């Protein structure tokens, strides 16, 4: 277990020093501040519009971070051969995969916390206190589950796709399932990450998700994350490096 945390901490340190993360932060903050300064279509309509834009950007940007960072991890290590320094030591390939996942996941969660803080700050700026805190907390938990799902999926895809194709396909799955729902091709055969998306509840300040449903959704995300990582391990276990 300790090897996993050592690897995850290395990934975290490396990723937070990259400029691309801060570019995404800056972009989100600029868009949010700009949107917060606007006003059109009546206060009530605009309030809802702003909440929707803000939370949607938070979802999209955090998923982009999780997918792009996860899709680069293993290909980068195997292409540059830096993986040799790790796997020549008493580290199993399962620990390697889970460590990489956990590193990306922790960076994604840290980014998500910043995005939510920026979003809540923007709501305060507009004097909008209509969203119950419990709903925002639930949104954050399920959002974290969504990132876990996509980070694990991108790690699995990274074992047989290039980083660019991986990012494109993972994002198509994200946008496809969350925008097109049941009309998305092969919908019934696919996992349903859109179940973890409670944007509408946050935008319209609906009732929070019941505890049993929240637990079920968290479990759903954990099961899929574990499935994707197990499949990644099954592929990577016997791979010659």
């Amino acid at each position: 277990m300790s090897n996993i945390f050592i690897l995850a901490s290395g990934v975290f340190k490396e990723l937070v020093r990259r400029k691309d993360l801060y570019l995404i932060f800056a972009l989100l903050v600029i868009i949010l501040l700009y949107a917060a300064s606007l006003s059109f279509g009546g206060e009530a309509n605009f309030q809802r519009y702003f909440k929707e834009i803000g939370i949607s950007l938070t979802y999209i940007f955090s998923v982009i971070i999780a997918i792009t960072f996860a899709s680069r991890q293993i290909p980068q290590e195997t292409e540059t051969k830096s993986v040799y320094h790790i796997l020549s030591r008493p580290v199993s390939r399962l620990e390697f995969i889970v460590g990489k996942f956990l590193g990306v996941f922790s960076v994604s969660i840290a980014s998500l916390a910043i995005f939510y803080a920026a979003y809540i700050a923007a709501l305060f700026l507009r004097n909008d206190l209509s969203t119950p805190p419990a709903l925002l907390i639930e949104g954050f938990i399920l959002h974290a589950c969504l990132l876990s799902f996509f980070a694990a999926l991108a790690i699995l895809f990274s074992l047989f796709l290039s980083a660019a194709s991986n990012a494109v396909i993972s994002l198509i799955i994200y946008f496809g399932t969350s925008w097109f729902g049941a009309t998305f091709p092969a919908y019934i055969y696919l996992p349903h990450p859109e179940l973890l998306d409670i944007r509408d509840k946050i935008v319209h300040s609906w009732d929070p998700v019941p505890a049993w449903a929240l637990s079920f959704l968290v479990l759903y995300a954990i099961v899929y994350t574990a499935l994707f990582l197990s499949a990644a391990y099954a592929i990577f276990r016997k791979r010659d490096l």
Partner: protein
Amino acid sequence: MGSVLSLENLTVTYARGPGKEKTAIDGVSLDIGGGKILGLLGPNGAGKTTLIKTVIGLIGAKNGSVSIFGAPVSAAAKRRVGYMPEIANFYWFLTPKEVLKMLGRLSGVGRNDLSVRIEKTLEIVGLSDEAGQLIKNFSKGMSERLNMAQAILHDPELLILDEPFSGLDPLGRIHMRNILSGLKKEGKTILLSSHELSEAELISDDICVMKKGRILRSAPLAEILEERTDKSLEKYFLQMIGGQDV
């Protein structure tokens, strides 16, 4: 001292399309005694790197066995092995200190010993002044030195070095040679693959010549040179691999 690394009829193949495979290592058996330096020589494609990667567990063998310190390769055995890959690539956005801390902990070095070992290792390879710099700013030579540092950090008894002299300038080579001589004096066992015959000749006790995945000869360097009137390892090597007309 007994055998530290032993290969028994090792065969490694690569898949080359459906139903086809290429034999990279063909029934190799080899023993390295404790405290010795074995120079693994061979032309490009001889199978040196594949052999090393199989020993380390990065590539699976089709047949045969590898034992380190008399037992099959295990996590415990890996703690006693230091590996320096041919390509020195590290995480660009970490410092040498951070990389060594991570790799040292993965090798099982205790937290208390680790900082002392990192300081000492950086001093040995001459990177103490660059310990806090991001690796993305490193030259090739500095990366090579860090590559050596991570291999010796946990004070392994067996060192496996893949082309340790490649990418080094003359001064760097002398430094590397001195490090290896120091490790030999400490009683470490070293397997090194090299294209640099002159370097291998200067530090090896035994020489193993490979070609097309097979060992052509493995013998003490002194014995090989004794047989030759010209006392030249280079000419012996060229004769062995069939390149004497070059």
